[in-house]
């Protein structure tokens, strides 16, 4: 697979691991006193575990799994709203597969489907659009979920629906943005991060400069990284190099995909369709200013929040999270998944309590699936 397998070369990975080890020794990083590097993106968490990088890397480098999984940071109340819309007679509710198993208070979308709601997994919002064209008598709602990577796809789909005059297509917008929660994390006095691996596919849309504040205001290195194993290791090396050199800069390891200033078409579509909400709730992080998007009034005809009177702006935002769930602490790296009292007991991938156990990008699920599950239980 071109542009992918080349970056999975074992020899290159070994060389990177050696170089990382030398750099870590140089800094004086040890198991007891490690360098903490947060990979913001769940995709990176997934790669780390899939390739076993956490076990191969020098013990003085510790990965902190950040809040970059849009499914994991979704509060239960949002799932409840999805279920409510999906159970409305006449609705075809479409979603990415990731969101199907996330527990709401009453039920997950998977359970709602088993109860008779017409919920369909799609690969793309374009498929939802096509369903709307083919089912003129039904309202097709697409669950717009994801960071800046995914936001352009729903923006372009809404623009297309508007051009075609489709009146039975709407998006239930729960898109969120990456920089704001990072700013919030960095403001937390408990936080002991030494550097960041930046989400490459977000920067493919927004470029690398939205992270300037990390280096400039907080003095932390950040390297925007690709998702193959050598991409990740090279980025770790780049972070360590900055640490060793006492620098803090925004660097781009993933230049083959990430343009410095992002993608202008995507940015224009986002700006046309969406605007920032004053504030948005993140599971484990609470309310964060300007961290969520909503559909602009000019596209209200495609806004499921408007059509159904259900959603973030409708006042039903306070549903307490499950008790005993440490998702919040795990999300910001304060606890390892295995330190959550629910891990493997009340909370397993078959019957997840917290969202971190649901998405395969969630830290808990990744731990369970690829690494520590059975050790933790043994």
């Amino acid at each position: 697979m071109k542009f992918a397998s080349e970056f999975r070369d074992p020899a290159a990975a070994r060389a990177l691991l050696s170089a990382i080890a030398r750099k870590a020794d140089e800094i004086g990083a040890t198991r007891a006193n490690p360098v903490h590097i947060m990979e913001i993106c769940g995709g990176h968490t997934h790669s780390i575990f899939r390739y076993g990088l956490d076990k191969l890397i020098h013990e003085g480098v510790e990965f902190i799994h950040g809040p970059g999984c849009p499914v994991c940071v979704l509060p239960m109340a949002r799932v409840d709203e999805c279920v409510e819309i999906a159970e409305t007679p006449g609705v075809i509710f479409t979603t990415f597969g990731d969101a199907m198993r996330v527990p709401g208070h009453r039920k997950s979308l998977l359970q709602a489907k088993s109860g008779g709601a017409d919920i369909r997994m799609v690969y793309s919002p374009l498929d939802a659009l096509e369903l709307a064209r083919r089912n003129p008598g039904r309202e097709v709602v697409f669950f717009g979920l994801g960071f800046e990577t995914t936001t352009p796809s729903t923006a372009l789909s809404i623009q297309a629906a508007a051009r075609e005059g489709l009146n039975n297509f709407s998006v239930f917008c729960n898109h969120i943005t990456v920089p704001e929660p990072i700013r919030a994390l960095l403001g937390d006095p408990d936080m002991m991060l030494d550097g960041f691996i930046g989400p490459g596919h977000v920067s493919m849309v927004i470029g690398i400069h939205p992270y300037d504040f990390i280096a400039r205001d907080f003095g932390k290195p950040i390297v925007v990284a690709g998702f193959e194993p050598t991409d990740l290791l090279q980025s770790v090396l780049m972070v360590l190099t900055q640490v060793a050199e006492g620098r803090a800069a925004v660097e781009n390891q993933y230049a083959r995909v990430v343009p410095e200033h992002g993608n202008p078409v995507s940015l224009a579509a986002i700006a046309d369709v969406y605007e920032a909400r004053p504030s948005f709730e993140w599971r484990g992080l609470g309310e964060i200013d300007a961290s969520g998007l909503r559909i602009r009034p000019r596209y209200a005809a495609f806004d499921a929040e408007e059509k159904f009177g259900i959603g973030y702006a409708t006042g039903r935002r306070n549903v307490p999270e499950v008790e005993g769930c440490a998702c919040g602490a795990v999300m910001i790296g304060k606890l390892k998944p295995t330190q959550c009292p629910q891990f493997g007991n009340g909370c397993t991938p078959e019957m997840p309590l917290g969202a971190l156990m649901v998405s395969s990008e969630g830290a808990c699920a990744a731990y369970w699936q690829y690494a520590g599950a059975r050790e933790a239980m043994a």
Partner: protein
Amino acid sequence: MALRDTHVTMAHGGGGRAMRDLIDEVFTSVFQPPGMEDQARLMEASLQQPGARLAFTTDSFVVTPLEFPGGDIGTLAICGTVNDLAVGGARPLWLSAAFIIEEGCEIALLRRIVASMAAEAARAGIRIVTGDTKVVERGKGDGVFITTAGVGVIPPGLDLGARHIQPGDVVIVNGVLGDHGATILAARGDLALSVDLNSDCAGLGHLMQAALTAAPDLRAARDCTRGGLASALNELAAEAGVAIELDETRLPLRPEVVGLCELLGLDPLYLANEGRLVLFCPPDQAGGLVAALRSLPHGEGACIIGKTLPAPAGRVTLRTAFGGARLVDMLIGEQLPRIC
């Protein structure tokens, strides 16, 4: 001749003449001549040998679409049960076939499915000796479901099974993984993907016979169907009380299957197969076993993919290309296409 309908109606399930016509024309005409009674009466010398045992298994087959590149639900229904008999060391003898047909199902489709079954049964050297048809209302079925049960004979002295697996055994598969699952995902059409793949669906009795000859100490074999290789290995490791370690670099995967998995965020180890065995044998017999499989149809891609370890019992891991290891757990729920 009596059957002039083009689609199945509720009348075809009513127990009367319309049903009789459907059965006579579509079903029994292609299967073995039906006995006069609603039960087959059978015997085989091998079954009466002292020490011989009877093997008995069943599976229901549900698949969308009913016809797909490389097979149809009829092929699956024969191969699946033949393979479940064969992997236990049984020589498959007789099959039953029960059909649950949705009102509105095209009769021409039924004929094609039944023809596939007859052809596949002939290939496997088994007879379909008894059957049943039911018709359910539209919206209460999905075209057609088929349940087959199979009876075979295990020769005296032969005892394959997970509990015979030893630490140090070699893990072998008979070919590339995930073709069936990937083919079905694409054939369903709702993800709008197209790919030139065929289901691996095949009867594997001949491979098992060859394996038993080539590896006299064959421990166990299993067909990797729903839940893929990963789920089969997890069950086997747990039953055997060993660990299994796979070598990522040895896993046989077609580029198209890898591509589909990368696109949808799936793991090919969990994709269904319908013509793939995983076999366990002592290391000194592994070479001969692989060679024997490779000489036969559906065994050309046979290879060693890993080994068993003494502990931890029940644990399956994958050693990656650069030495990392990850757990290969059982499939959790369904594999859902992952996007973000």
